[in-house]
């Protein structure tokens, strides 16, 4: 498959999505949906405006801290539980039930504990991201070939040296998958935190648009968010595929 035909695919998909959107707009009416052209214009207006970037920076900062906590915490938890068989067997089901709970219901608890502001957003983002990172790390370590583990033991590597030179490189591709999913989850958590508990950020802009029922603003912001998430995700996915090939 050449790059050109792939480009053509994306172009066709774009045209198809545009037509589907137009049809949906005709059907649902301007009260429920905004037309694609106007939405794109509003999105580009946002990108050119100063206040938008102020909100984006607030979201970005909270997202950055949330990612940091989720990635470091998740990796530490994953390595601690994944390195030993019993610990993994005990911890993995607990983590996966925590992963499965509808975390949005915990938002009152987070608000009561952290109050309004950036710490609640970071906490909510990290709460979403930490479990997938930990679970994928445990899975990656569990699937590491026993031969590698034995080799490390034969060479009498210390646990830290074994983790750094043998386990980590072997498990890296799957860990990166976990990081990518953790990244998405943290973004979602941060935005949800902003929806409910903030006076700035993209989530705050969204909730304001929701309350004033500005359909065009909601759609334009959603479009921008989706574009950002899809772009970041594609980049991480490309990196991941390169790792898997090695």
């Amino acid at each position: 498959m050449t790059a050109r035909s792939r480009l053509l695919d994306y172009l066709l998909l774009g045209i198809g999505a545009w037509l589907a959107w137009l049809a949906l707009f005709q059907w649902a009416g301007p009260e429920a949906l905004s037309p694609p052209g106007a939405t794109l214009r509003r999105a580009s207006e946002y990108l050119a405006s100063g206040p938008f970037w102020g909100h984006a920076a607030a979201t970005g900062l909270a997202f950055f801290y949330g990612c940091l906590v989720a990635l470091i915490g998740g990796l530490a938890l994953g390595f601690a539980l994944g390195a030993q068989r019993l610990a993994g067997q005990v911890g993995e089901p607990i983590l996966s039930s925590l992963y499965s709970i509808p975390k949005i219901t915990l938002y009152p608890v987070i608000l009561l504990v952290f109050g309004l502001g950036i710490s609640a957003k970071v906490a909510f983002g990290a709460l979403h991201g930490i479990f997938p990172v930990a679970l994928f790390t445990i899975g990656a370590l569990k699937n590491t070939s026993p031969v590698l583990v034995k080799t490390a033991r034969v060479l009498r590597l210390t646990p830290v040296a074994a983790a750094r030179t043998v386990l980590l490189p072997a498990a890296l591709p799957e860990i990166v998958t976990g990081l990518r999913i953790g990244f998405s989850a943290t973004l979602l958590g941060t935005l949800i935190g902003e929806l409910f508990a903030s006076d700035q950020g993209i989530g705050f802009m969204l909730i304001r648009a929701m309350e004033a029922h500005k359909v065009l603003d909601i759609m334009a912001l959603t479009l921008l968010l989706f574009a950002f998430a899809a772009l970041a995700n594609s980049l991480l996915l490309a990196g991941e595929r390169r790792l898997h090939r090695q």
Partner: protein
Amino acid sequence: MTRVRLWQLGIVGTAVIALELLCRLGIINRFTMIPPSEMVLALGRVVATAPWFWPDVRYTLGNLAAAIALSAVGGLLIGLAVHAVPRLRRALDPIFTSYYAVPTFVLYPLLIVFFGIGPASLIVLGALFGIVAMIVATMTAIDRIPVVLLKVARASRLGIWRTALLLKLPAASPHLMTGLRLAVAYSVIGIIAGEFILSTEGIGRRVALAYNNFDNQTMYALLVLILAFAISVNAALGAFEQALHRRWYRS
């Protein structure tokens, strides 16, 4: 296995007791969190005395069932259709993988305009949450059908429908089950989130009301209920999924 169970029980038990002590000793103040034992007692009181409890549970569960059915069936059909066109699938891939990073429920107000406040908006929101997990799982499931099975089908001269029904469906069932479990989990999130934001009935609505009225007893009681429900449903489906995986991939 029993040793693992004992450890798990010990860890969860210790966590609950620690939380209880922290609350009782006043290190976590009562306005932030009530002790776990009180949460359970409060839940008992709500179940026994609140006149809204059973109607709201019925409302939420009914919507949830409809959302799960929609996302499971819709996701299966869309997954089959997209899988049949590899180019479409490759083009849609970035959308599927980044779908869950966007808070879909920002579209909820638009759904309300379209469907009105009520079950229909909630069901569509829940289905929007769950459907993509099912689509992706369906495509994975078809990918993982062992080639040898298809050869067996050809060798035994099975028709398209009998191949699909007798070989493909059972072989794909473990991954379909994964998709169903995720669709259920996401639909729960969608329905509860929708009820939180704007609804006239439902358990999520009751949590929001209790939070706004500083009624921590009711709020934590309902949170315990929702979490217990989500965890046990997930555990049950997970156990079924594991059994299917073992049946197909270890024998």
